[in-house]
């Protein structure tokens, strides 16, 4: 029932410094896969993450479609393994260090600036920034964050044992995490803007057939209410305009994802949602700079895709670094 994990983030080693062959920004599946391949290949690699390693995949309860795990595997567990695998081959990992600027210096030299005003030098950089949960931007959302509003059911779900919970968004993430919350909560009400769910059929079946679940389709959440903590939500029927108030103790928000690429404005080309445009080989157009995984425009947000991007980028890095030598 319990697992016992060792995560060394509390006693992380200082980076060895000097010129890195490869700097990777983001330690989700894309960044860690690249780190596994590159460091195993003898490429001196430094990985940054502004949070703890693992990326979005570490915030999901259960991943069933990553090949090799017929019963599925917990997101944190899978990511823990990827991290260990990268570290085993000598990749250096710097957690809780946000990259704030990438400065091209010359061919074969990019400078990475971080929020703690440190500077690192690398011959090549991979942007594996992923994305983060979107906000709804409704009244009450910010006010009650941490007081009933949450974006991580894996983290906070256990606090809602026998409580009434609302999940906003009935896409893959909302339903997947909803299944997790259904284990604890007294009831789970799903509110979806669209008239239907765009989630995988298997997730729809499991949640909709659950005795503790209720679905409101074609409804827009307009307000989160509370006193000291969340006490309910207000939603509007998009067809009839009817307003429905629903008492609840918690609101988990899964309404999509958005990348955090503002610090790259002016450097790389992005689409209107802020995802980074690349060529088919994932180069950004800036010398020595590639983008991989969810942050890449028009990419499929799946662990397998992020892993494949990381693999291809590490192999491209080997070639690029070899060319720099000659």
């Amino acid at each position, binding site marked *: 029932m*319990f697992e016992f994990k*060792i995560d060394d983030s509390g*006693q992380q080693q200082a980076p060895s410094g000097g010129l890195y062959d490869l700097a990777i920004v983001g330690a989700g599946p894309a960044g860690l896969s690249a780190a596994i391949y590159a460091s195993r290949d003898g490429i001196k690699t430094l990985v940054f993450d502004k949070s*703890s390693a*693992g990326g979005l995949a570490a915030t999901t309860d259960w991943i069933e479609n990553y090949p090799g795990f017929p019963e599925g595997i917990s997101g944190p567990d899978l990511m823990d393994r990827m991290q260990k695998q990268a570290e085993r081959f000598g990749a250096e990992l710097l957690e809780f260090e946000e990259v704030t600027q990438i400065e091209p210096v010359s061919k074969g030299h990019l400078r990475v600036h971080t929020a703690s005003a440190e500077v690192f030098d690398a011959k090549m950089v991979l942007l594996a920034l992923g994305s983060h949960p979107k906000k709804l931007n409704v009244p009450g959302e910010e006010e009650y964050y*941490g007081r009933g509003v949450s974006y991580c059911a894996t*983290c*906070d*779900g256990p*606090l809602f044992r026998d409580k009434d919970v609302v999940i906003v968004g009935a896409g893959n993430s909302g339903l997947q995490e909803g299944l997790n919350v259904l284990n604890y909560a007294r009831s789970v009400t799903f509110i979806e803007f669209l008239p239907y769910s765009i989630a995988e059929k298997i997730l729809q079946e499991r949640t909709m057939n659950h005795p503790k679940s209720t679905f409101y389709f074609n409804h827009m959440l307009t307000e989160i209410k509370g006193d000291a903590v969340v006490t309910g939500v207000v939603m509007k029927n998009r067809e009839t305009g009817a307003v429905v108030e629903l008492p609840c103790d918690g609101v988990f928000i899964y309404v999509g994802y958005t990348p955090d690429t503002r610090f790259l404005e002016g450097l790389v080309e992005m689409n209107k949602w802020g995802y980074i445009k690349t060529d088919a080989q994932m180069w950004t157009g800036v010398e020595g700079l590639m983008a991989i995984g969810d942050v890449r425009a028009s990419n499929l947000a799946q662990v397998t895709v992020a892993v494949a991007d990381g693999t291809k980028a590490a192999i491209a890095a080997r070639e690029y670094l070899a060319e720099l030598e000659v």
Partner: protein
Amino acid sequence: MALLNDQIRDQVSEMLVDLPNVVRLVMFKKAEDCPYCSIIEELITEVASTSDRVTVEVYDIEHDKEQVAAYGIDKAPVIAIVGAKDYGLRFFGIPANYEFSTLLHGIQVAGAGEPAQLDAATKSFLAGLNKPVHYEVFVTPTCPYCPGAAVLAFDMAVHSDYVKADVVEAGEFPDLAGRYNVMGVPLNVLNHTQRVEGRAPAQMIVDAIKASL
């Protein structure tokens, strides 16, 4: 069956075998309404079996009044992590999943008698403290961000005699969690009044301590 597999056992042993000071894991359990008490006891016994530098003592919160008073215990299950002296490190509930790291970190810093990672500014602030600080961190075992918050509390408590650090598995202490409206983790609470949500940098905790004094 052992709770720790061979690989984890080896890692734990490596981390704890050379502790400068012996660390006593002093557990308080209760007879009723404690589904995880026996697992916690088994876990810390396994941890202690990996190193001569770690020992286990188990008491009952109802019966062993003298120890309850000596360690200032008000709820169970709890593990007091005691090094050369009692730095005030407490873990309430089961240190499972990610929180196992927090327990190990506590043992390491208590055994070393010094924090693993505190910057100079934080150390100098702590050196100037002259009032008690009760630093509580609420966590869940499945929260990847939580150990980062918890180990900071342990580091500060080891560094300052004025700081006492309670890491609380929120799911097992619903009354306390309810009192502070804990609905997201990690949550740091300083002297029962100041809340800091999330894994915050040391400077934010220092500011919250100042505001709480």
